[in-house]
C-alpha cells in the first residue's frame, strides 16, 4: 500500500514537471508578452523621462466604453466611490488624499474611499458590486486584474454609472477613461538610465517585483528589457524574484539575491512601493550601501532615510496625489459632458490640461525622479 501512495505522489509531481517544461519564457522573468515600444536612448546621460514628448503621430480612435443612459447631472452634486487595489498602503493613501483634494476644490463632488485590505480580485469585485447597488454616480478604480474586474465595471456602465480608472487599467471597453500615471516606456527608461548613471552601462542587477504577472510591473519589466536591449546591451540581467507586496518577503528576497550573487551584483530594482524601501533596507543592513545601487518605484516618505544616508540616489515615481486628483477631475468632466470621446485633452484643475493618449487614456505627465535635493518637499 505504501507503494500505491508513493505512486500517487509521483503522479502529482509528474503533473508539476509537465507544467514546468511547458512554460517557456521568451522574455525576462516577470515580463509580459505584450508589444513593447522603447524610447530613444539617452545618449549616455540620464535625463528625466520625457514620455509625453514622444507622442504617436496619429492618435488612435476612442476605444473606451460608454455609460448607458446616464442621467444628466451637469453641475449637480455627485457621489463618487474610489476603489483602489487595496487600502492601507502608503501609495493608495496618497491617491485617496488626491481625490479628496479635488473633491474639496470642486465643491460638488463627494468621494468615498473604500476597498479591500488585500489585493484580492474577488473582494474588489464585491466592493464595486455593493456600491452599484447603493447607487453612486461614478466609480473610480485601480484594477487588481484587468479582465476579472471587467464584468462588474460593465455592469456599472449599464446602470448609468460613469467609470474612470487610474493606476491599473481594465479592458478598455469596461471603463470610459483611464488616467495613466506615466507611460510604461517612460518609467522603464527612467529606471534603466538611473542605474546606468550610477553603475555604468555594463552593470549586473537583480529585480524585486510583486508577482510575475502583476500587469503594471510586468509591463515595466518588458519595457526595461526592450529599452536596455536597444540602448545598453551590455547590462547584465541576473534574476527577477517575487515578493508580493509584503515587507518581510521583499526584505528576504533582496537578501537572497545579494547572497547569491555576492560581489557580482551592482544594482537592485524595486518594482513596487513596498519592494523598494525594503530592498534598500536589506542593502543597508548588509552594509552594502554604495556597492549595490537600489533604484525603484516608491513613495518618498519611506525612502527619505535611505536617500538622506546616500544609500539610494534616486527614486522614480509619478505623484500619486496628483493621480487621484486628476481622476476626480476627469470624472467630473465626464459627468458634465465636457470631456467626450474624440477630445484630445482635458482640464484638471491645478494640473492644467492633460493629454489624451492611446485612444481613451489621459496621461498624467512624465515620471518624476526624487533625489536628495527634492525629496524633503514631499509628504506622502
Amino acid at each position, binding site marked *: 500500500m505504501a507503494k500505491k501512495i508513493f505512486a500517487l505522489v509521483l503522479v502529482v509531481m509528474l503533473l*508539476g514537471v*509537465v507544467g514546468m517544461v511547458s512554460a517557456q519564457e521568451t522574455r525576462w522573468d516577470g515580463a509580459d508578452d505584450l508589444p513593447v515600444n522603447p524610447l530613444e536612448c539617452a545618449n549616455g546621460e540620464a535625463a528625466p523621462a520625457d514620455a509625453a514628448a514622444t507622442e504617436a503621430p496619429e492618435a488612435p480612435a476612442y476605444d473606451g466604453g460608454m455609460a448607458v443612459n446616464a442621467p444628466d447631472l451637469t453641475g449637480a452634486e455627485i457621489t463618487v466611490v474610489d476603489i483602489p487595489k487595496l487600502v492601507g498602503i502608503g501609495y493608495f493613501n496618497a491617491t485617496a488624499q488626491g481625490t479628496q483634494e479635488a473633491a474639496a476644490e470642486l465643491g460638488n463632488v463627494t468621494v468615498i474611499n473604500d476597498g479591500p485590505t488585500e489585493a484580492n480580485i474577488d473582494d474588489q469585485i464585491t466592493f464595486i458590486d455593493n456600491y452599484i447597488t447603493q447607487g453612486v454616480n461614478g466609480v473610480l478604480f485601480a484594477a487588481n486584474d484587468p479582465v476579472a474586474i471587467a*464584468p462588474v465595471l460593465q455592469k456599472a456602465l449599464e446602470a448609468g454609472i460613469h467609470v474612470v480608472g487610474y493606476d491599473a487599467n481594465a479592458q478598455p471597453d469596461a471603463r470610459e477613461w483611464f488616467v495613466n500615471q506615466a507611460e510604461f516606456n517612460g518609467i522603464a527608461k527612467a529606471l534603466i538610465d538611473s542605474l546606468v548613471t550610477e553603475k555604468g552601462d555594463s552593470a549586473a542587477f537583480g529585480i524585486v517585483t510583486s508577482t510575475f*504577472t502583476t500587469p503594471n510591473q510586468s509591463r515595466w519589466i518588458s519595457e526595461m528589457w526592450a529599452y536596455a536591449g536597444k540602448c545598453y546591451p551590455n547590462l547584465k540581467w541576473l534574476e527577477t524574484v517575487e515578493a508580493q507586496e509584503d515587507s518581510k518577503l521583499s526584505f528576504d528576497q533582496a537578501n537572497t539575491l545579494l547572497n547569491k550573487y555576492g560581489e557580482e551584483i551592482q544594482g537592485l530594482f524595486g518594482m513596487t512601493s513596498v519592494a523598494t524601501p525594503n530592498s534598500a533596507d536589506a542593502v543597508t543592513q548588509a552594509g552594502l550601501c554604495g556597492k549595490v545601487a537600489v533604484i525603484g518605484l516608491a513613495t518618498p516618505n519611506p525612502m527619505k532615510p535611505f536617500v538622506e544616508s546616500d544609500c539610494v540616489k534616486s527614486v522614480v515615481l509619478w505623484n500619486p496625489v496628483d493621480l487621484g486628483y486628476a481622476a476626480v477631475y476627469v470624472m467630473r468632466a465626464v459627468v458634465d459632458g465636457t470631456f467626450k470621446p474624440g477630445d484630445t485633452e482635458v482640464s484638471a484643475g491645478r494640473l492644467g490640461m492633460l493629454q489624451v493618449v492611446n485612444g481613451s487614456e489621459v496621461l498624467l505627465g512624465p515620471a518624476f525622479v526624487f533625489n536628495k535635493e527634492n525629496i524633503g518637499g514631499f509628504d506622502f
Partner: protein
Amino acid sequence: MTVSSNEAPAQSGFSLRALLIRQEFILFVITIVGVLLLATQSDKFLTVDNILNQGRLVTEVALVALPMTLIIITGGIDLSVGSIMGVCAIVLGYSWKNLGFPLELAIAFTLVVGLVAGLLNGLFIVRLGLPPLIMTLATFALYRGLAEGISQARSVRGYPDWFFEMGQKNFMSYEKGVPNQLIIVVIAAVIVGIILARTPFGRGLYAIGNNEMGARFSGIPVFLYKLVIYSFSGFMAGMAAWIYVSRVSTTRSDMGTGLELDAIAAVVIGGTSIFGGSGTIIGTVIGLILIQLLKNGLALSGVKGDSTTIVVGLVLILAIVLNNFIQNPPEWFKRRFASS
C-alpha cells in the same frame, strides 16, 4: 411575519419546544431580525435584485460548504478546497488554451481533476489514517503550489461568449431574474440535504461522527463513505472554479484563497458541531445566507472596508455560545428556570 411564531407559548407540546431550541430555528430568527434591522438602514438592501445578486456572489462558498457540512459531520475537515478551486481554475484555462482541449472537454476535465484532488485527500486519510486537518493542510499548500507552478502565475483569458452564460447571466437569459449559478446551488443543496437526512448514507455519516469504531462494527462502510465525501468536496470545488472563472472571465492561480475559512464559518454558524455527529444542510444554508446578507447589508448601510468581518467573527462565536447555552444550560440557569 414569521417572527411572531417566536412568541408562541412553549407549553403546547414537546415537539414545538424541540423546534424552538433547535439551532437552525434560532439562527433563522437571528437572520430575520438582522435583515429587518439592516433594511431600516438602507432601502437598497431588501430588494429582489440585491438579494438575487448576493446569491450570485455567494455561489462558490455555498458549493463547497455543502460537502464541508458532510465532512465536518463525520468529524473531519477539508482545508484544501480553496486550493483545489485554484488548481481547477488553472487546469480549466491551461487545458483549453495550452493543451488545445475543446472548452466543453476542458470543463469536464476540470471537474475530474477536482474529483481526483478530493479523492487523493480521502485516500490518504482513509488508508493511512492521517488526520484530515494534516492531510488537507498539506494539500492546501500542495494544490496551490501546483496552480502556481503549472500556470507560472499567468492568467488565461479570451473565453468565448457562451462560456460566460453560467457565471454572468440569468436563468433563460432574462435581463432580470435568477442567476444561473444560484439555480445550481439550490438544486445541489436540496439533493445533498435529502441525501443527508433521508438515506442510509446520510445516517452513516452521523454514525461515523458520533463513534467511528462503533459505526465500523455496525457494518457501515466507513472508508467508502469517507472517500465519497472527500471526492465530492473536490468535485464541488472544481464546480466552484468553473462558475467563478465564468463569472470573472479569467483564470488566476490565486483564485479561491480563503474559501475554506468562509465555508467552515458558514457550516459552523449553521450549527454543525466541529467535533462531528450533528448538523444539517438547512443550518448551513441559513449560515451562508446570514453571513452574506450581514456583510452586504452592513456595506450598504455605509460600513466601510473589511470591518464588516468583525461582525462575522462575532456572530460566529456568539452563535456557538448561544447554542451551547440553550442546548446545555449551566446549572444555575436550569435551577432558576425550573423553579419559576
